[in-house]
């Protein structure tokens, strides 16, 4: 059984850090579905939200512990099973004629956090911010109009936990009970 995991990491804001993190994922054969990185609450550190796809149960511990071993990485928390909020933003350029533009706006009104951000004679650019499922259902509805370009930020997430994570924080799902095949 494989699964999708959401990992939050605090990393040094230094040249090459992204390379080190990406290199570890590639080399260990983990599949990054999305990676978002930006400034964090601390000036010299960035926060990353990494969504990893197709993680076999046996590798749950590997993903987090290998990431934790990267010297520039300060905190690693697999928050998938915690209470957390997650959002992504998408900018969607859709073909829009005079006739179809009204339909597109109607669809947009069905979604929270969605709006038109730019209009041209033959296209509109829409923005939506929300959970992944919401972004995907909007995309499905827009598909018939013709999506010309799409830019998604990838997921950004924060746990709702009130405790302040410490330097060196490590949270991974506990593995309990021996696996019959031992890994």
């Amino acid at each position, binding site marked *: 059984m494989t699964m999708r995991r959401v990992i939050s990491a605090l*990393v*040094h804001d230094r*040249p*090459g850090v992204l*390379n*080190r993190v990406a*290199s570890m994922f590639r*080399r260990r054969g983990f599949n990054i579905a999305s990676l978002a990185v930006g400034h964090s609450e601390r000036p010299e550190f960035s926060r990353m939200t990494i969504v990893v796809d197709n993680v076999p149960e*046996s590798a749950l*511990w*590997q993903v987090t*512990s*290998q990431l*934790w*071993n*990267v*010297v*520039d*990485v*300060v905190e690693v928390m697999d928050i998938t099973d915690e209470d957390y909020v997650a959002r992504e933003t998408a900018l969607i350029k859709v073909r829009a004629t005079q006739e179809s533009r009204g339909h597109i706006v109607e669809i947009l009104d069905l979604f929270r956090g969605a709006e038109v951000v730019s209009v041209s004679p033959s296209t509109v650019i829409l923005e939506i911010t929300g959970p992944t499922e919401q972004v995907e259902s909007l995309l499905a509805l827009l598909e018939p109009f013709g999506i010309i370009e799409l830019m998604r930020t990838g997921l950004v997430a924060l746990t709702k936990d009130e405790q302040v994570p410490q*330097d*060196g924080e*490590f949270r991974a799902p506990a*593995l309990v009970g*021996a*696996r019959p*095949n*031992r*890994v």
Partner: protein
Amino acid sequence: MSGRMLAGGEFVCESLQAEGVDLVFGVPGGAILPLYDHILKYPSIHHVLTRHEQGAAHAADGYARATGKVGVCIATSGPGAINLAVGLGTSFMDSTPIVAITGQVTRPAIGKDAFQETDVTGVTIPVTKHNYLVLSAEDIPRVMKEAFHIARSARPGPVLVDLPRDVLQEIAEFTGYPETVDDLPGFRPITHPDPVQVEAAAEMINAAKKPVILAGRGVLVAQAEKELQELAEKAQIPVIPTLLGIGSFPGNHYLYVSLMGMHGSAFANLVVDECDLLVNVGSRFDDRIIGRVADFAPNAKIVHLNIDRSAIHQNVFADAPVIGDAKNSLNALLPQVEKQARTEWLSRVDDLRREHPLVVRDFAGKPSTQYVIKRIHELTNGQAFIVTGVGQHQMWAAQHYVTDRPNSFITSGGLGTMGYEVPAAMGAQMGMPNEQVWSICGDAGFQMTLQELATIRDENAPVKFAIMNNFHHGMVRQWQTLFYDKRYSQINTTGPDFVKLAEAYGMLGIRVEDIKDVDSAIKRAQDHNGPVIIDFLVEIDELVYPMIPAGQSVNEMVEDPWTQQQPLGTVAR
């Protein structure tokens, strides 16, 4: 605090001096020249000019493994730096602390495809624990302090420091070498185990009827040999070393088993097959140990003591992980582990020992590699420092050079780097000048790095090289014999006349073609006050047994057909 105005190159030398480094291995070149200019002023740092950067990296590794200290190697930018890479990979796999210092093109030239520019920090990410590109001279002491700290802490490994030429030339105020590492919030080695984990592990050990310990390199790193022995004796648990854990438990102890795994003894593999608990102390469960995971120790629960949390559950699921330094973890376990006799289990282990001996095959005329190694073992009383290459001779050395000395068996395990045997032996010898160092070489591996013989001559490092000359990539030949119907492809490695080669390098050269001359050659080498090369012309058709083919289990283990016909009780150990 005001300090002296120094150049970046001097910052490096000051840092090395403050770390107590007295031996470094390297090769100069354009980008690193400012450092080489300053190193002349630091006579306490002895620089060994190797003939190839690979040699510098392996020498630093051999030095580090023999002494337990951090090894240091130096290279220039571009080709020099990437020549280090195989050495870094070797150290990385085998948990060896190394600081590699490389020159880089000047800061303004970086990214311009400048002469001898290579993105060295980029190239070495997968073979280092961490690396640095230093962009100001002032930063050098902090970076060096961190580099040494990271290299030796947690699971040891190589750290590379890349220094642009103009940073080495930059004049700045040197205010001293930092005493503490203050700015590494992302590097928090777990030194002390969680008591909850310790308790769970102790319970499992106490409940076990047929436990066995697998002792890895982590025991040597933690210097926990005494604690390991206490645990084994208190709970009466037999001990199996990994290839890199040889010497972590005395080979002459009644609880000592012998190597397990692909080329471990049948006896050890059968013990693991029957055990109901396997206590891994400081090993990462390499696939050459476990074979097919589903069939590995099928009846056993697993206790895993390791300082690296990523080693836990990596290859084998641990029922009771204990994350921490092996010494601390063993000390925490000891009071909770019950004294037990386990007589039934130990007598079963002894039966297996008798039924599956490791016997040295005798040949008339030409000696076998096993025989030569056995004689070296006996004539050095098992007290020499052994460095090996990779291949058949390596496996026989591991099987037959049984020792009770920590850190005295030095071999490339995880990467299996041929050519390691020559420079690493030099490094080990220079780190342990009062020990006898024997390098058990393959004829092919020896030819990969033999240029370091000149360095060895210059340094007068009295290494005894014993080339197990089968004129072949013996281990490749073995696989082609067993798995490719003897379709031999590209395995003839006939070299030069090694005796003349020895003479060309100003060393004593001896050739042995007959079994009756083995002893006298070894003794002559021991008596000779300087480096020696013995060219042992050994049996070619000898295969390493037992063998568990890659990815298979003890059920598919092949024992030596010859050994099985021998009378019981002839145990070579």
